Every structure is written in structure tokens, then in C-alpha cells.
């Protein structure tokens, strides 16, 4: 039931991810900023991002989704979370 996806939640998800990145790195990124190209994130922090998203949103990032491009920006992470939650909702009881 709570897995139902509201479009307006995307900005809330973005805000939460941005807050996490800010807390961990001391830098508050823009939604579209490439975290890796701009030196905010590195390969070690990448895994922390995955773990954070999985725990916070009860999703599993696996297979072809487990690739750096999905984690480059706050926006791409929020989009991934949105898609995985939608897929989980469709697979579940709805």
C-alpha cells in the first residue's frame, strides 16, 4: 500500500539523497551535478550510496542497475529509486 508511487515524491527523494551526500561529504550537490566528475564522490563512496538507497527505500539494486551511471547525480539516483519502487509495487500486492 505505501509502495504506491506519487510523482511528487521524486523531489522528496532527491532532497533526502542530497542531505545524505552533504552529511557524508561536506558538499551539498545540485540535483544534476556529476558527483564523481566533480570529486564529491569516489569509488569507495559509491558503495555507500548503494547501501543508503537500499536501506532507506527498501529496494535492491542488482544486475544491470548496479552501474556507476545510475549513481552519478542526485537526479539519476532518485530516478532509479522511483523505478525500483514502482517495479516492486507492480510485482507485489499493488
Amino acid at each position, binding site marked *: 500500500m505505501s509502495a504506491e508511487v506519487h510523482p511528487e515524491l521524486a523531489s522528496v527523494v532527491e532532497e533526502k539523497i542530497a542531505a545524505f551526500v552533504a552529511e557524508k561529504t561536506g558538499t551539498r550537490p545540485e540535483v544534476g551535478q556529476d558527483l564523481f566528475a566533480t570529486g564529491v564522490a569516489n569509488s*569507495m563512496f559509491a558503495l555507500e550510496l548503494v547501501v543508503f538507497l537500499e536501506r532507506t527505500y527498501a529496494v535492491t539494486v542488482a544486475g544491470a542497475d*548496479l552501474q556507476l551511471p545510475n549513481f552519478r547525480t542526485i537526479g539519476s539516483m532518485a530516478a532509479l529509486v522511483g523505478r525500483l519502487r514502482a517495479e516492486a509495487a507492480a510485482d507485489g500486492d499493488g
Partner: protein
Amino acid sequence: MDDPLIAVLGAGVMGTGISTLAVGHGLPVVLVDVDEAVLERARAATATGLRHAQLVGALPPGRAPGELRTTVSLDDIAAAGAVVEAVTERADLKTELLAKVSTLVRPGTPLISNTSGIPIDEIAECVQRPGELIGTHFMNPAYLISMVEVIRGRRTAEATVKSVLALLGRLGRRAVVVRDAPGFVTSRLLHPMINDAARVVSEGTATVEEVDTLMQGCLGHPTGPLRTADLIGIDNLVDSLTVLHARTGDERCRPSELLLEKVRRGELGRKSGLGFYVYREAAS
């Protein structure tokens, strides 16, 4: 010998990382430790490590992972094509274990001691065939960092060097072979620098963050020395500094009080969730 079995001894941070690297490149691994609980954690850490490696594109595409077997029985390494010893950074422990290992494996099997600073020739004395012993110094995480320091001991045979370089090539690593000496190249340069960075913090010259930020921004260090300390593991760093200090007499290698204090408090870095920085999301 198409897919040689890699025996990894010691399921700490390095042993687990090297196991992850090998299975990620399709080789079967038998990982040995004296503690079942440690092996249990190592299995979980290997699964996480494989995800991490896939995430950042550090695995060869389309290769099925090798099988990871864990065991508390050293006898299970008899069929190994290569042995990587990655136990605690103490010459006595490494010597005792490798002496035993050299009686278990077939002649011609490279015995690779993974160490950040213990001279290989100190251990060669106790193995049955000193020519088969060689050193490596993998960085952490072994499955992400593609460069490996390889140490040719005074008695290391050319065939052993060749065979280990071939194995590293198969694991997608690049190697630089150096001569045997305390701390070789990387630890001889890096460890006293990290030790000094901790002293700089203790003396109040700058905060942890400021030290790392300056070393990154001014000198191009990828993460800063204190984040590196957390990644190495501060207990391991202190062990390595102790090894270096005992063998070089260099006072810059005497573990600083701040590092010792962190070890006493169990603040070991990433692996314990707290070191110079907090890692609560990555831990547990």
C-alpha cells in the same frame, strides 16, 4: 591448470579482498581462517565486494564468478595452484604458517606472502623451497586498486616471479617488481607520512578534515592520508609502522600516540565503522 585454485590464508580485510578479486575474475578460491565467525563475515564481505566491483566496472564482463570455499582446515589447500598468505602483519605468525604451508603444497606452487612491509627474506629461511616464496603488497580494496607492488626476495626464483606476474595479469592487475627491504617502496614512503599526519592533528596544527583536504587539493593525494589510514585499518597501520621502526630505526616510523590510542579504543577505521571518520552506513 586452466583455472588454478587460489588458496588464501587469513580472512581479514586483505585476505577477503584478494579472495573477492580472484573469484570476481572467475578463479576458484579456498579461503582459510582459524575462526568460523571470521569466515562467515568474509563470505558476506565477498558478496558485498563483488557488488562493489561490479558497480564501478572493476570486473571483466561476462565472466562467471569462481567458487568461494571457506574452511578452518589448512589441509584443504593441498591442491592449490598458488597460495596467498594474508594473516596479521607479524613476521613470527607469517613464518610459522608458511613453514607449515610449504610442506602441504606441491613443489612449484608459488607461496605469496601479502605484506605491507615485512622483508620476504626473513620468512624464506623457514620454508622448504625458498625459491618459491615471493611477496606482494596489494592495496585495499584489492578488487578495486589495479596496481600491485611485488617483492622479489633475495632467494626468490625467476620462475616464481614469472608465474606470479602471469597470475596477476590474469586478475587484471598491473605489477611493479621491487627488491626486498622493510616497507619496500609504498609503505616506506606512505606509512611515516600517515604517522606524521596523525601527529599534526595531535599537535593541533589542523583538523583531520583540514589535513586531508590540503593533501588532496594541494598535493593531489586521492583521499588524504587520514582517510587512507581508515582504509588500511589503523591496527594494521600500527603493526606495519612497528615492523618498519624495528628494522629501520627511523623515528618517524614509531607509531604515534594518537594511532595507538585509536587502536586501544577499537577505532580501527572503515572496518569498525569509526576511525578518523565515521562510516556507519558502510559498517555492519
